[in-house]
């Protein structure tokens, strides 16, 4: 019952629906062709398998130019496969992927993309300056070298050999290589993995500046905070399927869970919560914290028992909790 409700709630939105969304209001008179010119990326019923493993199954979505999209999901959900298909590094087993209306392998499409890939190599015996200059030569309208170094914060490392850079500096170099061609779309596959908190925040600032120029960003991440901070839209992938596709706030609203935290004057009777719809129950002395989809039921039970309740706070679920609830609903639906 609940599982079916969750499936209905998932805001799966196909390419056609985004087109409709775009054509409505101000652009009502435009043709589909004209609108698709303003679509950066389109996936139409895309499946991809590796041997017997189905990495993506019937995935459809469209990303208009200027949107920042986070592909979110557990390991093995198909995030990296999706990025690989959008970049033309892999071919779909079924369906179609288009970048600016072109085959992603088309040089015209590639000239408008930049990417940071997971675990991709870089020549170690070139200097930072040399490799950025080399990559600039691949693009029709590259950013000036000095500007690339400045954006990536690598001015002081320009003459350093790539092999001597620290992990964080190497990550900044990958960012520099991704943006040096002044791309319209930036693909980032788990860009901040392995960065410390400060470096991550710095990176987020750079991405926000990039967004303000009207550029499109597609990033995969397993840091929910990152998706929440950077993205206008979250596409939740799980087992190769789109589970949800919505703005972060809307996605959180889809999840009915609320977190309740309070203090009690004396311990609640044993088994008090057994009959109540709660999860993630934590009791530490007088402090109690729990998640519930039925806020009113739990509050009524709390206030009709004798112990005094103080410092009560009710917060909306974090994206992480929303995410857990959405994926759990799915596996429950599968299990029975």
């Amino acid at each position, binding site marked *: 019952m609940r599982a079916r409700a969750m499936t209905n709630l998932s805001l799966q939105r196909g390419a056609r629906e985004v087109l409709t969304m775009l054509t409505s209001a101000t652009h009502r008179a435009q*043709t589909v062709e004209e609108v698709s010119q303003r679509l950066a990326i389109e996936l139409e019923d895309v499946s991809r398998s590796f041997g017997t493993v189905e990495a993506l199954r019937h995935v459809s979505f469209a990303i208009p130019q200027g949107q920042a999209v986070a592909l979110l999901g557990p390991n093995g959900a198909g995030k990296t496969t999706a990025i690989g298909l959008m970049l033309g*590094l892999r*071919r779909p087993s079924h369906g179609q992927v288009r970048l600016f209306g072109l085959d992603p392998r088309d040089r*015209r499409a590639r000239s408008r993309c930049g990417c940071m*890939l997971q675990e991709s*190599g870089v020549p170690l015996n070139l200097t930072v300056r040399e490799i950025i200059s080399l990559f600039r030569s691949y693009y029709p309208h590259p950013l000036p070298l000095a500007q690339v170094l400045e954006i990536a914060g690598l001015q002081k490392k320009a003459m350093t050999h790539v092999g001597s850079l620290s992990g964080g500096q190497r990550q900044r170099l990958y960012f520099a*290589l991704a943006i040096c061609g002044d791309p319209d779309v930036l693909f980032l596959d788990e860009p901040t993995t392995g960065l410390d908190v400060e470096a991550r925040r710095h990176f987020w600032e750079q991405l926000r500046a990039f967004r303000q120029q009207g550029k499109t960003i597609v990033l995969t991440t397993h840091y929910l905070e990152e998706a929440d901070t950077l993205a206008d839209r979250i596409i939740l992938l799980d087992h190769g399927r789109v589970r949800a596709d919505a703005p972060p706030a809307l996605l959180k609203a889809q999840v009915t869970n609320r977190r309740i935290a309070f203090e009690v004057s004396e311990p609640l009777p044993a088994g008090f919560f057994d009959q109540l719809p709660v999860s993630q129950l934590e009791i530490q002395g007088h402090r109690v914290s729990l998640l519930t989809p039925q806020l009113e039921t739990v509050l009524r039970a709390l206030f009709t028992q004798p112990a005094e309740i103080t410092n009560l706070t009710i917060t909306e679920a974090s994206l992480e909790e929303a995410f857990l609830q959405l994926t759990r609903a799915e596996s429950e639906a599968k299990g029975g």
Partner: protein
Amino acid sequence: MPARVTPGSSTRRLVAPLRAMLWPQVQAEVLRLWRTPSFLVPGLLLPLVLYSLLGGLGKANSLEGGISRHAYALASVATYSIISVMLYSFGVSIANERGQRLNVLMRATPLPASIYLLAKVVTALLSALIILLVLCGFALIVGGVQLSALSWVTLIASLLLGVLPFILLGFAIGNLVNPAGATPIINLSFFILAFASGVFVPLTQLPAALQNIAPYSPFYLLALLAWNAVGVHIGTIGNTVWLLVLYSVIFLSLAVWAYRREERYSFG
């Protein structure tokens, strides 16, 4: 329906011109090769050592049949060096870049795979030329090898042209083998090719079975071109050139097959 044109799009270039990509790519490849320690020492110094060991120094005595020992050593070592550049600097670098997933990063850029490869071939030929010039200079000044200007040019030109089958073989092995195993596999195939070629061990001293095969080994055939260029006439040239062409065709098929296999595996 008239196509909607975004302002400036008619004059704005959609892709970078290919010829503007080749030169920076070659420059970067040369820099990388020059900074690889395993290139400089074995690539430049080993030929000089081999030349000295093979009798290229000292009294210019002759081998049987009036063959100059110095010229013979020069042509043999030149052949060896140029083949080793194609297999090691070119073939192993392709395998290593697959191992480091550098090919994936490059593939996501607008740089066409053909330019990437062409730059590698040009770099390998440039470094082969440098190695030949150093070796010839050493043979001329230290070894006292006397050749006509035409012979010097013929030696260098025939080696640079005749190395084509080895470029293709290096490319095939670089795409075929497991990156971690590239160096040992190339060591082994290079050793067998070199041993069974009569370049370092005279044909007459090889095991009987090899004596019959060796004259058809690609290593021997290229050496034959080099020996002829310096006036050591061991065999005829006509068949040699055709056999090298035949080897090129075989290695080209192998290279295409290996490349397609790797494409399917990594980018299919």
